[in-house]
């Protein structure tokens, strides 16, 4: 049995202890929040994520450029060899012509890649983002619902209707993409992840798919050669 004065002293001590703990907690919570904000600001200012991503892109681009240099050097050697032996290598020219026709969407092509089916409406910016991701992953030929898509193909929305090169597309959208499926896969997944919140997207790898549609080059009326 404690006396009332002892009881009062004990209660006061508990009050003091809890007050001190509460003050300590409050102080630490405030400092914690402030320091987290400071860390975020510091990272934003340094932007090391951006720098790291840029390094990644530069490495990839430089590897591509090294390969381009090798192809051009070989082409030059072949042309020079023919010229030195007194002839002309029209085969080397034909090979380059074929490559450029493929790039410009002027001839039918086949090869490995992805078939992407989208069940539901897609806006122009969503398709454009997907095309950017796929091209960045090395897509060599793309078609959508029977229309070949190249760099200059306009993609616009008229209300809910998606228009590609002036043609209205209906769902399902079926996109065929030729390229390295290992590289294209993650790019397609990235686009699908943002679309899948409201439309159904399926991505299938194909060993060999054909894109038979071609683009008729627009007539050059205003542009002239040279700087």
């Amino acid at each position, binding site marked *: 049995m404690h006396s009332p004065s002892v009881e009062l002293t004990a209660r006061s001590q508990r009050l003091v*202890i809890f007050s001190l*703990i509460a003050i*300590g*907690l409050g102080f*630490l919570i405030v400092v914690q929040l402030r*320091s987290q904000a400071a860390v975020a600001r510091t990272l934003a200012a*340094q*932007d*090391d994520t*951006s*720098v790291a*991503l*840029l*390094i990644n892109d*530069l490495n990839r*681009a*430089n590897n*591509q*450029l090294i*390969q*381009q*240099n090798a*192809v*051009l050097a070989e082409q030059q050697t072949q*042309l020079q060899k023919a*010229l030195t032996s007194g002839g*002309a290598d*029209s085969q*080397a*020219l034909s090979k380059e012509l*074929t*490559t*450029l*026709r*493929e*790039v*410009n969407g002027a001839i*039918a*092509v*086949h090869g490995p890649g992805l078939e992407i089916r989208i069940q539901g409406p897609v806006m*122009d910016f969503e398709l*454009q983002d997907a095309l*950017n*991701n796929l*091209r960045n992953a090395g897509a*060599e030929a793309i078609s959508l619902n029977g229309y070949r898509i190249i760099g*200059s193909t*306009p993609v*616009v929305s008229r209300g809910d209707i998606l228009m590609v090169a002036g043609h209205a597309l209906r769902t399902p959208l079926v996109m065929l993409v*030729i*390229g*390295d499926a290992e590289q294209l896969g993650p790019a397609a997944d990235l686009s699908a992840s943002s679309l899948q919140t409201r439309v159904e997207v399926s991505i299938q790898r194909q060993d060999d798919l054909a894109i038979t549609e071609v683009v008729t080059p*627009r007539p*050059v*009326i*205003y*542009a002239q*050669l*040279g*700087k």
Partner: protein
Amino acid sequence: MTVLASVSLATFLVAGLAATQFRSQPLPPSNRLARDEALRKSVNQLEDQNRTLKARVQTLQADVKAGEDESARRSSAAQEVKAQLDEQKTFAGLTALHGPGLTVLLHDGTDPNSPVDHSLGWTIHYQDLQDIVNVLWASGAEAVAVNGQRIVPSTAFHYAGVNILVNNASRLSGPYTVIAVGDPPALANGVGNPDQLAELKSRNRIYGLGFSWLRSTRLSVPAYDATFLVKYAQPIG
């Protein structure tokens, strides 16, 4: 007993917070600076290498073209292929072009520093440039370049963090100049159409992005500063 439990719990929380606090301290300035410096040095080295490789590509392209020209002079078969090749090079953006057209200008606006506006609407995003280029193609542009980078079939606008990249990791930074060769009135009508680029125009009014366009009688766009590799697509037939 209750008091002991309360004190233990509170002590635990204090210790936990103290530990978190300790962990969340930024890196010491010296480490941070060293890391920053190393990262930036890597970017500089890679960009130097990028420029060197592009210059090498252009030299080789010139050599190849000289060989092709000589082949065309020597053989009628080669001459025929060469004519088609030149046409495809023009379509692919491998030759510099000039002509009348439209210049579109824009830049980052003013950060409102508003506690309620965290939209970053005051900055130019890669999608803005992509949208402008898209409208220009739809309006009949025959050739387009953004900040001196020719837009070609393989061009992809994308972000690497805050950097806008196109064409083999070429960084684009403001102010942005988009040049399109084509029919100036048609291009201006396309960009000026209220149904086109509506979101960009709205942000321009709010944040002052300097979005404007100018018709010209003579503009020029450079050739693409690299070439194309096709490894997987094979011609049919």
